[in-house]
């Protein structure tokens, strides 16, 4: 009884994937890199997950509270990462996962924020994201307005090379740039261990990378512009399974 149901589900997923022209960057990687991402024992992001697990249980700040004191085991956050960026009712704005962790840190733990792209923040982010593997990404409907700002930024030509994100990642995805395949830029695996960085980095770092690539002045980490782009990308990738923390060349 159960096996035919599973087969039916697999067939349905395969059919759905066949209709979906969207490709995760994972599909464009070589077999060695795909194996590296799939095997937790070989995926270097596991080192950040390990560090995140240690931080998860560590009491900190004036409140002397650990993540575990409120949330319990990290597994309770299963699927949560797929819902970010989300609408933060208290601030009436969008908040991404890193921002949410920082908010927890400053408000609940009453500790100084880690700061964007710092090792402990990425470690906690990697730990939370690992709990959402395979969960489809969901776009928060409350962020429609922010998503349209993000789409405007996505289509805006920037930098000395006068290129927009869309010109490469929508119009020329699948072609090559200097011998490297241009991916469709789906934000399905962040934070990623990028071989070029020899470390873990967030989506904002990746966006910064593209911005400096077209010789534009990058936005500041945590800025509203990056957030809007993250919201738009989440909408663009909605329904695709979360792979994070992934590996990318």
């Amino acid at each position, binding site marked *: 009884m159960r096996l035919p149901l599973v087969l039916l589900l697999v067939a349905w997923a395969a059919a759905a994937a066949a209709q979906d022209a969207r490709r995760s960057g994972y599909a464009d990687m070589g077999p060695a890199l795909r194996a590296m991402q799939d*095997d*937790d*024992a*070989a995926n*270097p992001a*596991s*080192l*950040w997950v*390990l*560090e995140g*697990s*240690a931080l998860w249980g560590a009491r900190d700040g004036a409140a002397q509270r650990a993540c575990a004191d409120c949330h319990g085991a990290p597994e309770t956050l299963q699927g949560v990462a797929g819902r970010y960026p989300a609408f933060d009712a208290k601030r009436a704005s969008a908040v991404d996962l890193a921002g949410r962790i920082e908010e927890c840190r400053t408000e609940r733990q009453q500790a100084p924020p880690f700061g964007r792209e710092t090792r402990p923040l990425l470690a906690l982010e990697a730990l939370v994201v690992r709990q959402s593997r395979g969960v489809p990404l969901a776009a928060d409907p409350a962020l429609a307005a922010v998503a349209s700002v993000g789409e405007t930024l996505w289509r805006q030509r920037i930098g000395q090379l006068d290129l927009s994100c869309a010109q490469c990642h929508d119009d020329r995805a699948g072609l090559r740039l200097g011998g490297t395949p241009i991916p469709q830029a789906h934000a399905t695996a962040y934070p990623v261990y990028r*071989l070029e960085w*020899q*470390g873990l980095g967030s989506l904002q770092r990746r966006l910064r990378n593209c911005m400096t690539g077209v010789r534009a002045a990058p936005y500041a980490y945590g800025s509203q512009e990056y957030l809007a782009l993250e919201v738009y990308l989440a909408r663009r990738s909605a329904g695709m399974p979360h792979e994070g923390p992934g590996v990318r060349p």
Partner: protein
Amino acid sequence: MSARGLVSAPARVKRGEVFEVKTLVAHPMETGFRPGFDGRLIPRDIVTRMAVSLDGAELFAMEMSPAIAANPYVAFPMTLEKGGVLTVEWRGDNGFVAEARIAIAVA
């Protein structure tokens, strides 16, 4: 300091069966040949030795060089006659020490 090394292997293996042990250690592996933002060379900071021991007896050790990428990944095959605790220890520049262990049972 403690949460720096990872070692993965099957929890149970058959006697004499070849299985793979995979290790990862968080380390920048700074080569000593790269100039920093100020133009001066960044001093070398690498893992120099990785040693694997079973229940305290060293099985093998390897020397590591600046040509190895950050967060070194080392995998090796092995067999066991009886179960034990496999310990991997990394030592490096500036007093770097990391250790990870895993218990493997033999059926």
